């Protein structure tokens, strides 16, 4: 029999603590859309996406109604376009991005991901054309997301790709300069990119994935922050237990929604992504969890340790609650999307350097960070190379989503609106790494023994 206490706890989590399902993302394979003719490829892709995900939005709305749990975003991810669009030139890829946008708008979804390439070891013709098309594609679309994997622990870092991505990001910032350089918020540069990530901007449908699949990303920083607050003056062992139990409950809900969505759509279940994903809403912040744990201000000394414990406890609690866990799974620290991070950056407690250290122990990487618009390409490449090498050396996923805010300088702020929030422009180191970056080539894969 249902217990009143349990019922009230669940309802309180949803109503007061911003518990929600962040995203139900449907992965769709586009391998059967391959064609020599860009027009034909785009037509086939449009049909495949709109047919496969036809019921995605309506089914998610039914589930929201049935369980009373909000599903914030409905998204689609597709096979990386550079792989299925191989033969096309730059213009063909721009057209493909516009077709993705059209299909996504027709479905009524919030984002579509997969306009990307995997270039950790080198560029195929298609990958090269796609990467050159990213700035135009991102400026002419609203909800198409792009990701490029430039490194992996197995093969090392493709520094030619890193050096190219600095220019791509800079150019995208310029092209979308009138809109706060928002195009850059839809581009992620990855190391060790996962195949089944439901979160944007990095979602794509990996090569070994089934024809279609449902991946679900849960959220819930507000619930964890409140649980930590209620735990009161306990030691860290007890606090870790509290976080684990809370993560378990959040993830069970994600698994329930995933099961139900799969049943109603007739699509196999992929994974639940156990991430703590913040939103700009007050009380839905990962930074506030850290501050609730006792770190005076996020970014101060002790932050990395608190974040490491939080990240680990979330995974441990969530793992048992789901039959398959995947994606990025961990605590996200996107600066512009987290009210606590914004406050910490604005008062100077949180710096780019500290964020970099934090990414070594948590999910994703340097995420949604605005930097001055006049930062040089090689400095952006340096930021990417540093972050990517953390992922490669530690056998984990890391990523960079920086926004060189056109016409802005350190101390200003950029407003993106919606889930993307507001980014304080953070200062970067002025020293020039251009000689290092222009060397190009491949940083070899790291050794896997003699670890320290």
């Amino acid at each position, binding site marked *: 029999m*249902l217990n009143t206490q349990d019922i009230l706890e669940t309802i309180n989590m949803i109503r007061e603590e911003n518990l929600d399902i962040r995203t139900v993302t449907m992965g769709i394979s586009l391998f059967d859309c391959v064609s020599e003719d860009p027009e034909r490829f785009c037509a086939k892709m449009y049909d495949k996406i709109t047919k496969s995900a036809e019921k995605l939005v309506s089914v998610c709305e039914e589930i929201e109604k*049935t369980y009373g749990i909000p599903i914030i975003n409905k998204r689609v991810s597709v096979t990386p376009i550079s792989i299925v669009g191989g033969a096309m030139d730059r213009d063909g890829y721009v057209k493909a991005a516009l077709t993705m946008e059209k299909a996504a708008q027709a479905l009524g979804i919030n984002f579509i991901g997969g306009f990307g390439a995997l270039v950790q070891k080198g560029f195929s013709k298609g990958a090269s054309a796609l990467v050159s098309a990213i700035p135009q594609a991102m400026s002419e679309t609203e909800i198409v997301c792009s990701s490029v994997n430039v490194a992996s622990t197995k093969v090392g870092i493709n520094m030619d790709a890193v050096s190219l991505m600095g220019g791509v990001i800079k150019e995208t910032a310029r092209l979308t300069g009138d809109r706060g350089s928002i195009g850059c918020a839809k581009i992620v540069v990855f190391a060790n990119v996962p195949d089944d990530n439901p979160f944007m901007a990095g979602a794509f449908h990996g090569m070994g994935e089934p024809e279609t699949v449902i991946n679900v990303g849960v959220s819930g920083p507000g619930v964890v922050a409140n649980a930590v607050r209620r735990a009161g003056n306990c030691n860290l062992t007890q606090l870790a237990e509290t976080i684990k139990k809370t993560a378990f409950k959040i993830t069970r809900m994600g698994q329930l929604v995933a099961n139900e969505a799969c049943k109603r759509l007739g699509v196999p279940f992929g994974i639940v992504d156990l991430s703590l994903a913040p939103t700009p809403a007050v009380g839905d912040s990962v930074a506030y969890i850290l501050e609730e744990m006792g770190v005076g201000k996020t970014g101060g000394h002790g932050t990395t340790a608190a974040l490491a414990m939080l990240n680990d406890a979330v995974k441990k609690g969530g793992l048992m609650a789901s039959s398959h866990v995947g994606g990025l799974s961990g605590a996200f620290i996107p600066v512009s999307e987290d009210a606590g991070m914004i406050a910490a950056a604005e008062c100077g407690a949180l710096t780019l350097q500290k964020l970099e250290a934090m990414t070594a122990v948590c999910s994703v990487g340097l995420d949604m960070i605005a930097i001055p618009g006049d930062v040089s390409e090689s400095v952006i490449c340096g930021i990417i190379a540093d972050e990517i090498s953390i992922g490669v050396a530690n056998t984990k996923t890391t990523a960079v989503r920086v926004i060189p805010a056109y016409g802005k300088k350190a101390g200003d702020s950029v407003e993106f609106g919606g889930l993307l929030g507001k980014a304080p422009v953070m200062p970067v180191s002025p020293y020039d790494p251009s000689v290092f970056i222009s060397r190009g080539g491949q940083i070899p894969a790291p050794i896997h023994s003699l670890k320290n």
Partner: protein
Amino acid sequence: MVSSIRFIQKPAAKPAQERTGTKMKAVITVTGKDTTGIIAGVSGVCAECGANIVDISQSVLKEYFAMIMVVELSGMNTSFGNFADRLEELGKDKGLVIQTMHEDIFNSMHRI
């Protein structure tokens, strides 16, 4: 080989409220300022929609009213969404918050 891909994709099952044989339940929570006729209103909608009330607990703290009602759905003559909408409407008329949620969300969160 091609058809085997289709084979592993399980056919869509019917939505929970359409499945037969199992007794699906929903939890209705009503919160707000106490007025007359709250239970009458909620149970009236339940009766019209064919939802059978199996448990009610309520408390009134000062002027504040809170009720949790568990209903069984196998005899429902309308969709879950419609049922939830009607209760929500009723709540709006009476200045209350009425939320209807499938019991599975509580079971999955609090039972292993």
